[in-house]
């Protein structure tokens, strides 16, 4: 037992410590959750396809050079190669199942923009922006991580401001991305 004053101090310190601890735990949980890759219908391995086999991104995401959406390969596109391979891994078996059922694979997009953002791959690709600039070193991942939290407006602007200062008016105008 101390004086009333020291008791007060103790109580306040305890509360502060508890709040700080709670904040830390919450923050750590959030950080952990944000680092998790979203579950995909099959564990497509980018590393094998890009690094080992040396496929270009546009081989599968072929619409990136032409349109707004890069697109995901159809099951047929996958089977163009995989038809000659004996399905060994779990993922290859699932792929074959979808192919035989004649169903598209329900991929979970990881770099999707909200509805109020207008994004087109074509101007970016045609200006020679490498895919890795926005999507990271996909070739080193086994499964692509979720980018939707990382790709916020400040992130877009960091390039739009610096890459082409002479086009800043155009590149920083709201209606370029919001319409």
């Amino acid at each position, binding site marked *: 037992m101390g004086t009333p004053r020291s008791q007060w101090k103790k109580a306040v310190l305890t509360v502060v410590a508890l709040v700080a601890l709670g904040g830390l735990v919450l923050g750590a949980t959030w950080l952990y959750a944000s680092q998790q890759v979203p579950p995909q219908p099959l564990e497509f391995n980018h590393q094998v396809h890009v690094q080992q086999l040396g496929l270009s991104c546009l081989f599968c995401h072929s619409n990136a050079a032409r349109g707004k959406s890069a697109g995901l390969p159809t099951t047929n596109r996958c089977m163009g190669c995989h038809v000659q391979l004996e399905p060994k891994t779990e993922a290859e078996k699932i792929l074959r199942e979808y192919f035989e059922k004649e169903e598209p694979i329900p991929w979970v997009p990881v770099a999707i923009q909200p509805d109020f953002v207008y994004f087109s791959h074509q101007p970016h690709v045609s200006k020679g922006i490498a895919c890795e600039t926005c999507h990271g070193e996909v070739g080193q991942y086994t499964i692509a991580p979720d980018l939707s939290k990382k790709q*916020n*407006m*400040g*992130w877009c*602007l960091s390039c739009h401001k610096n890459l082409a200062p002479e086009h800043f008016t155009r590149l920083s105008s709201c209606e370029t991305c919001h319409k």
Partner: protein
Amino acid sequence: MHATNLPAELHEQVEKLRKEHLLLDPRPREEMNRMVLEAMEDVNREYFIVMVLLGLVTLVALFGAWGYAMYKGLGVAGIRRPIYWGLFIVSFVFWIGISHAGTFVSAILRVFKAEFRRPFTRAAELMTTFGLAGAGLFPLIHLGRTWRFYWMVPYPNQRWLWPNFHSPLVWDFLAINTYLLGSTMYLFLPLIPDLAMARDKSTGWRKILYTILSLGWRGTEEEWRHLQKAIQIFAWAIIPVMFSVHTIVSWDFAVAMKLGWHSTIFGPYFVIGALLSGISAVGFILYMIRVSMKNMRYFIRAEHFDALGKLLLIISMSWAYFFFNEFILEWYGGEHTVKEILRLYTQGAVAPVWWTMVVCNIVVPWAVLWNKNWRRKPWVMALMGVIVNIGMFAERYVIVTGALSRNRIPFDWGWYEPSLVEISIAVGTFALFFFLYGLASRLIPLIPVWEVEEGHHAHELKRMGKGVVVSVAELE
């Protein structure tokens, strides 16, 4: 001056003066302390019931309805094209007006050394703080996306975006926050000695509360000097802030291209209107304090209502002057949409509201307040408070919704009626105001005892020939 030193014929005169003026009727500090604390600690059953009711009304009518509006969308309000602002903005301007009472009564009367202000400066300052608390809610309530209100705050963010400093709404936002902070500090400063007094005389949780709030006040000479200085600085500084707040609120309308709003006189017109509603509301609050709290008949007397009444009459006249100016020039301009708006006010569908405004703000005050006997009756002044505030609410209603319903394209003329949700929120804010006020009345000493005591010391009765006169010393 002690009555014993006086000849008998003067004795009667002195007694009369004492009965009339608080500052000539000194009581020992100890007794005044006791009276104020007794009033503060008097938490009886009626008080409890009233507070629970007010709290429930606030919770349901204000926050419940607001939550509903946020969840469903602002369509639950009666507003529609082209009347995009309705009862929310009306209430906003109204409460900003109420909040002018405290600063005016307290700061301006303090600066001008009007002695009658002493017992009720705090009661008026509380109105400022809680009026602003009510007013501050409405810009949030009326937003389509309340949850994004913080985009009006200038802070560095990853979007690289700032608020638009051209917009009167940003000026509003900054002005209201400045006023709220400034007036809260101005409320708190003179409160410190009284809190220290309460700390010394109370026990239990109150003791702890006042120990924290009184910031270790001991009442040394130096502390008093600092406090007086700080109060002086704030009293001067808060006055321009007060004028700026309502001027900027008026600019929300005046800078717009909207006919009926686009008027250069709106700044002073709104400030005077705010004072009109604020000062009259002080009369109402003083009456409520006087009848509902213990020992207040000693502190708040007929002389105070009389003084408020005179002030109110002058302000009502000034308001009428601005009103006349505004109306006659709009009419003289002869722009045909403006003429249609004025026709709508005086003869059209808005006419009942418009004429209520004229009657409540001009006719009734002028008819009543010239009479000293009526001014001295607390209930008359309380009633004036209600009537004038009805009039001022009507004024804002006419300006906001009336003007919006007529524009340059007759195809798009419209009509506005408030919905139940809007009315509920508007009523709920009144409950919030009275709830906060009721809470404060039992938590802090409502009468600034030290200021009254100071007044007692400053006033002296002096014998002069066959009569007595009052002499006032400059203490500040």
